[in-house]
């Protein structure tokens, strides 16, 4: 019995191990039809939006590498709360358009940078974009988020800079 099955079992095990190794190797990488490897991770944003908590939340923008921005079309969405005002904190120039649109639950800010070299943000630098004045009446699930309509336009290439953002979930009282 032992002699009868030992060798086949060993060989079968080797085949299983080899095939498993092969498939594990492939699972780590997604290949396109040309055999090229494409992104395995969600693309990381060069620019990040984050929130500075407080009585009036402040939207911050940071960059992982030096960027030069020609324009920022910023759409901040909100739900289960009311935004009553928005202020530019002076780090960016005055926006060409600024409005809290309660019909659309959006805060819209269009920053157009006139300088030839654009608005530069250096790695690690944090820029205050806008401060939101929100109503004290907040219901469960209150949240601020960057709407997908938002564009950050690179001054050199006139292409959109990839960005990532975090939502700000607001409880009944702000820290």
């Amino acid at each position: 019995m032992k002699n009868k099955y030992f060798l086949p079992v060993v060989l079968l095990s080797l085949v299983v191990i080899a095939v498993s190794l092969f498939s594990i190797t492939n699972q780590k990488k997604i290949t396109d039809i040309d055999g090229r490897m494409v992104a395995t991770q969600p693309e990381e944003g060069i620019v990040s939006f984050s929130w500075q908590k407080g009585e009036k939340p402040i939207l911050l923008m940071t960059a992982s590498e030096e960027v030069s921005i020609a324009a920022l079309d910023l759409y901040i969405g909100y739900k289960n709360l009311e935004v009553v005002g928005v202020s530019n904190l002076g780090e960016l120039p005055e926006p060409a358009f600024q409005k809290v649109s309660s019909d659309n639950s959006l805060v819209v800010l269009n920053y157009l940078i006139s300088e030839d070299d654009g608005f530069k943000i250096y790695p690690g630098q944090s820029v205050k974009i806008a401060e939101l004045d929100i109503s004290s009446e907040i219901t469960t699930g209150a949240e601020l988020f960057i709407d997908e309509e938002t564009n950050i336009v690179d001054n050199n290439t006139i292409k959109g800079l990839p960005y990532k953002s975090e939502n700000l979930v607001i409880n009944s009282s702000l820290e």
Partner: protein
Amino acid sequence: MKKTTIPLLILLMVTLFGGLVLVKQNQDTRKGASFANTALKLIPNTTIERRVGEVVPVKVYYYTESGAKVDGVQTDVCWGSHLSLDESGVVVNTANGFNSSPIVVIKDNCATLVATSQQAASNLKTTGEVFALNFKALREGQGPITIKKESSMVTGDNPASATDKEIAVTTVENTTYKIIGSTQTCETDADCPPGYECYQPPMPSCAPGENCLQVMPPKYCRPMLEKNCDRCSIYFDHMRLAWQAQQNEDCSKDPLIDFSEKFLSSSADTKVTIIYDAKCMPPPETRKPNQCSRCSKVNDQQYTWWLRGADETCDDDPSSAQTIYRAYKEDCHLSSGQWPVLNYKVQYAFVKSDYSQCFVPEDWPLQVIVLSGGVTKAYNNVVPSKVDKSGDFVTVQGSLILEGFDRTNNVAVFMKGPKHLQMKYAVDKQANRYGKAGGELTLTKSIETSPVYDFTAYPILSGDVIGKNSDSPDGVVDGYDWAEVKRMAKVLETVEDGGYIESDLDGSCQVNSNDLYQLRKTLEEKQGELY
């Protein structure tokens, strides 16, 4: 037992061997494969205009996907005989982590450029400039500056492998240049060499509130534009072309062949006039077999030519994306009677009567959509027949036969130009946004009796020059349009009278602060309507 064990063993060994071979083969295939993609682009990507003797600056940019940081670029860049480049004109961008001493080999109007980096990944970039190339303009002429994709190579920091560093160059974008006459200043034509004239460039305009100096630019010598070329097209039936050429230019060249088709829509300095001539027939060897031509269905006294697509016939109307050539033809009349007629007057926003030398209705055709009771019909390439420059702003007027549209009551009209937003008109003398569904216009089926609707108090807003994901307008004015117009305004992109630049929003022949001001006002107004 023994009889079944041995074949089983052989089968398993073959399977194992096969599996190992397959694994090995796959690894070999992937060895050296790219771990990310990149695009190499020459910036600016629009025609760079300089004078003889001036520097023609071009930058090589990389734009890498998947967050891959670039540590090496090798590329071949080639240019025409009008330019020269030496090693001192090549500057590598150390701010993006590259070593300050690139390898530069220049031969036969091509340069092999290599930039490398030994810096840590934290100092490298996914997107940015690698080389600044400072060409010298040697002589008049135009041509492309190109990147050879097949010989370009990019490497980068691959966190998953120390050996697989190659980034595939999937896209290259080239640019073009145009070198014009020398910068010799002058007072009169007598100061210029033979074949040149003393030219006074126009005063740059300045937006209200902008603190820019209003200084008249100096006169300079430019080639005389006094030679008239006049010949039959070698492409189209019954088409004659007339244009002013430089003294040394060969009239036998056909602008349809020797220049891009855009030349005819006056992107170049010289405007080509198209004339209907029944006697003109092109030679069989060059005649375009897929050409179509007829009297315009939308513009009175106009004859049109275009090239149909492979799956189209000449009964199909040309699309707005197709190039249409137009000429005046007296006996081409719109056939009213069967269909309603829209008589309209409208303005393109900010196009001033005194500063609109580059407002040419043929280059600014309208798209008109009519709507009534759920029925819509679109008309492309509508060219207003009358231009009135008696007021502060240019007013255009036209009559459009609404062929295929059988409604005459409660009509709404949507209009847009080539770099404009779509505006809705629903009442006569409309002065702002019409916030209701449908419209209130009434039409008749006669050019004479149908009312002339005046939409001039609510001009067609401009500023849509590029899209978010393409170089074509996308129906909105946003930060991308701002960045594009700003880029052109930075170099004061200019054309001669009658020329066309997409970013020249007011038709002043130059992209400048006026256009930026105008775009800002458009964005402000449109966002105010939407939000």
